[in-house]
């Protein structure tokens, strides 16, 4: 050995990928046991793209579409929930099972604990009303505004849907415009259309 450079080369001779993966898994388990896993996340391939799913100890806290940018979503979780964010798939197992069953048309309702802490005030009220819209049906932004007791708040309902932290599971895709056009969707119009077609199929 002649230089510190040689020392680094020697260190890097060993491929530690498998060891580091094992240590990462061990860390997520210990973190969960010691109540330090504030946000667990994983990815899930679905017909509407690869979703990012995140859960707190309370429940599912975020479902994000690719167009939202995964890095942006993880930063948002870090700033608004906790920086203790780890890739830890196990906590998302129930959500994965239900979402896969939904796309296989074996499930029409989600029965998951939800953590709505990313939605506040009126937006949260709107989200709580969205779950009343039955599978395979739609409601208009105006109907939801009326249901919340604020019939004039049609635009506010629109922005509550647009910022829904739990799309798919809290079914904002079932809300459309009074003239029958689809309105917007955080996952893109193709995703909204696909979900409505999936649910409308006999």
């Amino acid at each position: 050995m002649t230089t510190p450079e040689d020392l680094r080369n020697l260190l890097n001779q060993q491929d530690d990928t498998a060891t580091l993966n094992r240590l990462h898994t061990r860390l997520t388990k210990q973190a969960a046991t010691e109540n330090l896993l504030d946000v667990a996340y994983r990815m899930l391939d679905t017909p509407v793209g690869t979703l990012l799913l995140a859960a707190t100890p309370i429940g599912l806290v975020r479902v994000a579409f690719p167009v939202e940018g995964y890095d942006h979503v993880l930063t948002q979780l870090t700033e608004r929930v906790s920086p203790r964010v780890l890739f830890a798939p196990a906590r998302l197992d129930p959500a994965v099972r239900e979402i896969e069953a939904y796309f296989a048309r074996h499930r029409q309702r989600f029965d998951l604990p939800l953590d709505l802490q990313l939605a506040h005030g009126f937006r949260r009220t709107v989200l709580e009303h969205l779950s009343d819209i039955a599978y395979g049906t739609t409601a208009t932004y105006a109907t939801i505004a009326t249901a919340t007791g604020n019939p004039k708040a049609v635009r506010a309902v629109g922005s509550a849907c647009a910022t829904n932290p739990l799309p798919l599971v809290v079914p904002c895709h079932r809300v459309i415009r009074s003239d029958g056009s689809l309105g917007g969707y955080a996952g893109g119009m193709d995703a909204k259309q696909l979900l409505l077609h999936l649910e409308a199929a006999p």
Partner: protein
Amino acid sequence: MSLPPFEQVVLDHSQVVLHVCRALVGPHDAEDAWSETFLAALTAYPRLRDDSYIRGWLVTIAHRKAIDRLRAAQRAPIPIGTLPNDPSLDRSAPDRSLDLWHSIAELPVAQRSAVVYHYIADLPYAQVAKMLDRNEPAVRRAAADGIAKLRTTIRREDIP
């Protein structure tokens, strides 16, 4: 600027912390030391200032954990006697890094710490001096002496 998600911290620094742990406590205990370091880091993470130098912070935690371990074991230098029989160390490639860890473990503590924190963890001498509670010239000298000693114990043909 805000703190990155902790997952990013693990991705960015897990390898260097593993190297540091191997060098401090030997390959046999390195994985446990790694786990203790990252669990302690995760615990403290929300209170970390968002302009902190994260690698230095992690290595400092690893350093404290290693000292705890060595004190608990009540012996120095680092125990390495059982190494060759450790099944977790079986690698298909001839593992010359094992010789390296032996050689590093045999360095006097001051030299070993200086070499590990400056050359393996890549921390500036000023920070290494602070961690070890020594002055900077002494740390530089210890690192140079340590490298010189490694030079005599690690064979030239081991270098890739």
